[in-house]
C-alpha cells in the first residue's frame, strides 16, 4: 500500500485505493485549525478554511492525486493549480488573525516569514518554485517516489502560501493597498506565460513519467502535455482574475464608503 500518491508504472485501474498519508495530512490541518480557531473563528473564515482543506484533499487523494502523480501531466497540472493557487488563499483567509498573533512571540520565525512574504521576494520565490517543480529532470526523479511526490506537493503549498500572503494577509499590520495587490496578481498572469508556452509549444513530450506511463483515456503524450499547459494558463488565469475582480470591487466599495466620496 502507498501512503502518498506517486508514479508506479502499473496500468491504471478505476479501482479506489487508500492513501493514508493524505488522510493524516488533511486530519492534521483540521485538528490544528480547530485548536487555533477555538472560540475565535467566524463562520466565514471557518468555511473558507474548510473549503481550502477540501480542495487540498481533492488534489492529493485518489483519483486526481494518483492520476496526476503517475499517468497524466494534465492532471498533474490540475493538482498544481489546486494546491498552489486555489487552496492557499482559502486556507490563509480562514486563519483567525488572533491565532497569527502568536507569531509575534517567536521573533526569529516572524522575521523570516516577514522577509519571505515581502511581495517582491514572494513573487520571485513563487515563480522560481514553479519553474523548478516543473523542470522535467526533477519531476521525473521526484514523482517516482512517495517522498519525492510529497516534497513537490508540499513545496507547491508553501510557495502558494508565500505568494498569496501579501494578497490575503490575515495580519492587520501587513495589509497592502488594493492597487498594489491587483498589480501583484496581474504581474503573475504575465509571468506564468513562460512555463505555459514551454508546455504548449514543446515539440516533444518533456516528462518521461507521463510519456512512458501506461495510457489512460486515449490522450497522446503530446496532447496531454498541451492540455497541461492550457490548464496552467487558463486555470491559473481564472484564479488570478477572480481574485482581481474581488479586490477591485472591495476597493470600489472602500472608496465609496470614504468621507467625501
Amino acid at each position, binding site marked *: 500500500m502507498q501512503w502518498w500518491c506517486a508514479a508506479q*508504472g*502499473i*496500468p491504471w485501474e478505476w479501482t479506489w485505493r487508500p492513501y493514508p498519508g493524505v488522510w493524516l495530512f488533511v486530519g492534521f490541518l483540521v485538528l490544528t485549525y480547530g485548536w487555533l480557531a477555538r472560540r475565535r473563528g467566524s463562520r466565514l473564515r471557518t468555511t473558507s478554511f474548510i473549503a481550502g482543506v477540501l480542495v487540498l484533499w481533492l488534489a492529493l487523494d485518489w483519483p486526481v492525486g494518483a492520476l496526476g502523480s503517475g499517468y497524466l501531466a494534465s492532471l498533474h497540472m490540475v493538482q498544481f493549480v489546486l494546491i498552489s493557487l486555489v487552496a492557499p488563499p482559502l486556507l490563509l483567509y480562514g486563519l483567525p488573525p488572533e491565532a497569527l498573533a502568536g507569531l509575534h512571540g517567536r521573533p526569529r520565525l516572524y522575521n523570516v516569514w516577514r522577509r519571505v512574504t515581502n511581495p517582491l521576494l514572494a513573487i520571485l520565490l513563487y515563480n522560481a518554485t514553479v519553474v523548478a517543480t516543473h523542470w522535467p529532470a526533477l519531476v521525473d526523479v521526484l514523482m517516482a517516489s512517495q517522498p519525492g511526490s510529497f516534497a513537490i506537493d508540499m513545496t507547491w503549498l508553501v510557495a502558494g502560501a508565500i505568494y498569496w500572503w501579501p494578497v490575503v494577509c490575515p495580519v492587520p499590520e501587513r495589509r497592502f493597498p488594493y492597487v498594489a495587490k491587483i498589480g501583484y496578481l496581474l504581474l503573475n498572469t504575465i509571468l506564468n506565460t513562460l512555463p505555459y508556452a514551454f508546455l504548449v509549444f514543446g*515539440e*516533444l*513530450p518533456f516528462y*518521461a513519467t507521463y*510519456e*512512458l*506511463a*501506461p*495510457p489512460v483515456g486515449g490522450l*497522446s*503524450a*503530446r496532447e496531454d502535455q498541451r492540455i497541461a499547459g492550457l490548464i496552467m494558463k487558463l486555470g491559473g488565469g481564472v484564479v488570478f482574475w477572480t481574485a482581481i475582480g474581488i479586490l477591485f470591487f472591495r476597493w470600489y466599495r472602500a472608496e465609496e464608503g470614504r468621507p467625501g466620496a
Partner: protein
Amino acid sequence: MRDYPTGSGGIALALLVAVAVAACGRTAEQRDADRRARESGYRGVALAEPVQRPDFTLTDTEGRPFRFVDETKGFVTLLFFGYTHCPDICPVQMANIASVLSDLPSPVQRAIKTVFVTTDPERDTPDRMRQWLAGFDRGFIGLRGDLEQVNEIQRQLRLAPAVRMGETTDYAVGHASQVLAFGADGPARLVYPSGTRQADWAHDLPRLVDEARATSGR
C-alpha cells in the same frame, strides 16, 4: 548529531560518491551497451552482434500472406512483438513511434515500415489488430500466425518467446518489449527497449534512413 560535509567541497564529494555509486550499479553488459551506443551515434541500444533479417511469412490484417524479407526490402523496418490487450508497453511503444513518424518529412516517413506481430493470436483478430494499429498510424502493418511460429521467429531474433499469463479471459501475455530496427536491406544493429522516448526516436529515425540511403546509393 551527525556531521555532514558542507560547502562546495561537500557538494563535490557527494556528487562524486553519487557518480561512483551509479557507475557501480550498472552491470558490465550495460556499460558495454552504453559504449556501443556512444560509438554508433544512435540512441538505440547497439547490439553486440547484428541480428539477420528473418525470413518468415505470416498473415497480414487483410488475410494476405506477408513475406517479411520481400515486403520490407529497401525499407528501414521497425519490428515489434506485442498484443493489443497490452495495458502498458505495447501502446506506449507504438504511440511514440507513430507520434515521431508523423513529424518527419514524407520521404523519410515513406522509407520506414513498422511491423507489429501479435503474440496473442487468440484474441488479436485481424479486425481488432487493424483498428488498434490504425489508432496509432494507418501505415502500421499487423501480422498474425500461430504462437508457436511467432515464438520460433522470436528465437531466431534472439528475443524471449511470448508466454500466456493467467487462465481467465483477460489474461496477460509476457513478451519481449524491445523494437528491432533493421537497415534497409541489412540486419538489425539496434534495438529500442521499453522506455525509449520520442526524443530518441526523433534523433535516430532520420539517421537510420540517411544511413540506409547512403548504403544503397539511392
